[in-house]
């Protein structure tokens, strides 16, 4: 294991491309994960840490102690924080708690005057009026989400443009079925949920840990970043960015990247392996992609068409990977080339780790909002005037 050695940013900042600048618009948060830009430009930040997976083997006890060294020591906020830049000067002078007493909120979405929050155990909804800085009441539950054990607890969220369908990404309850197949019911899949009734159905399955979902605005197609399985060596299995095809099975746990059988999942299921779909775009093994959003013209010519991906960074590789935000160029709604580094420097050349990117959100005013759950900071990258 290669654990990130955390240090404070101090006077340093992440590195951005020439012609861009980066500022910390909020600090001292309580584990910020995903962000949402509201119609009036306010930013909501979901803060929390979930999961209640029991330690089953001696290795679980040991690994939890070691991994904790690479994460923040702050307790998760279980809340939404609202950031406001009223005068548009790029300084978010208002930082206030919008809603609290949530249960490890992660995915955020807004449509038709409703703010949806995917807690680790339920999808809930707030009524939202433009300019509100505090929720007017307790949230209304749309539906329960699978939450037993919650080995992978993050519930990612996207909403269809008409606001009628919600998509929730539910991670597997293990790396590769080592907690038993029984606990994988309704796991490793994306649910489609009716916003009105809360009724759900599996939309796509075999996605080990779909940590962020987003609708590609041009095509209306749902996309996801997915974290793949560990312990097959430093160069397997690639985490990926993919369009999520309705009804498709993406392999977990029986196979990966199409038909590559994983014998660790027993008993095997050759029919499922045969049906497994290959993802669209490899991000590389162990980069731990946790955020995705589609760009707009206001982000600048070089980054106008494509997807930003936040990579939390590896813990099980001698040569660490991830720890940056990349840009995947698209054309005609499909990935069209090699990824380009957009924000780096989270892990310094001195081997110290100052931040770990999670959610990335494109602000329609031409900025990328990045949640950093190690430094408990929200970064904003803009073009220089």
């Amino acid at each position, binding site marked *: 294991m290669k654990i990130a050695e955390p240090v404070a940013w101090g006077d340093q900042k992440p590195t951005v491309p020439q012609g861009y600048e980066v500022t910390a618009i909020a600090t001292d948060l309580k584990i910020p994960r995903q962000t949402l830009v509201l119609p009036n430009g306010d930013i909501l930040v979901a803060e929390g840490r979930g999961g209640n997976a029991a330690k*089953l*083997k*001696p*290795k679980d006890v040991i690994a939890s102690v070691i991994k904790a060294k690479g994460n923040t020591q702050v307790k998760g906020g279980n809340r939404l924080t609202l950031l406001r830049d009223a005068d548009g000067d790029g300084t978010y002078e208002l930082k206030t708690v919008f809603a609290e007493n949530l249960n490890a909120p992660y995915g955020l979405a807004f449509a038709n005057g409703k703010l949806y929050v995917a807690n680790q155990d339920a999808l809930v909804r707030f009524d939202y009026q433009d300019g509100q800085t505090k929720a007017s009441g307790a949230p209304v539950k749309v539906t329960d989400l699978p939450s037993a054990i919650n080995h992978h607890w993050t519930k990612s969220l996207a909403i269809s443009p008409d606001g009628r369908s919600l998509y929730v990404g539910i991670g597997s309850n*293990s*790396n*590769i*079925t*080592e*907690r*038993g*197949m029984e606990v994988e019911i309704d796991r490793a899949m994306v649910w489609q949920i009716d916003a009105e009734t809360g009724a759900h159905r599996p939309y796509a399955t075999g996605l080990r840990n779909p940590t962020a979902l987003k609708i590609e605005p041009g095509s209306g197609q749902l996309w996801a970043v997915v974290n793949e399985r*560990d*312990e097959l060596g430093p160069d397997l299995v690639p985490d990926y960015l993919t369009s999520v095809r309705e009804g498709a099975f993406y392999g977990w746990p029986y196979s990966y990247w199409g038909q590559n059988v994983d*014998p*660790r*999942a*027993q*008993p095997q299921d050759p029919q499922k392996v045969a049906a497994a779909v290959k993802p669209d775009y490899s991000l590389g093994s162990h980069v731990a992609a946790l955020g995705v959003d589609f760009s707009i013209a206001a982000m600048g010519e070089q980054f106008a068409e494509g997807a930003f991906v936040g990579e939390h960074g590896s813990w099980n590789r001698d040569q660490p990977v991830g720890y940056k935000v990349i840009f995947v160029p698209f054309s005609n709604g499909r990935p069209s080339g090699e990824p380009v580094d957009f924000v780096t420097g989270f892990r310094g050349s001195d081997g110290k780790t100052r931040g770990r990117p999670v959610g990335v959100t494109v602000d329609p005013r031409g900025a990328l909002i990045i949640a950093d759950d190690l430094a408990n900071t929200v970064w904003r990258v803009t073009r220089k005037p």
Partner: protein
Amino acid sequence: MTVTAHPLYRSTPGPLHAVLLAGTVPLFLGGLLSDIAYYKTYQIQWSNFASWLIAGGLLFCGLALLFALVNLIRAERKAGRALMYFLLLLVTWVLGLINAFEHAKDAWAVMPQGLALSVVVTLLACVTAWVGLTSLRSGGEQ
């Protein structure tokens, strides 16, 4: 009364040493039986049991190894039974440790090496306990 006969007893396991040594056998054996159950049923809980039983076996075996080392250092004749016992115990412990790492893998990745190692370690533990406890009995007669 004098204690002139005392040095003769130094290479023999005391009661605590004997308990630790004998305890390794059911722990590693339990690990083996759990491995067999997992192999036959795919029920993951057996694999979890095996991991903990092997960890317990390593703890007992490791403490017995410390006793055996002290006995070996203090023994007047370092070759022979005391050395053989120590080496057997050392090999048992090292293979047991390798087996513990093998069992740290996820799900079926433990198989089949984990099961094979459990067989070897259990057999070694039996032989070692036999040798160690036999020297307990014969030790007083030297």
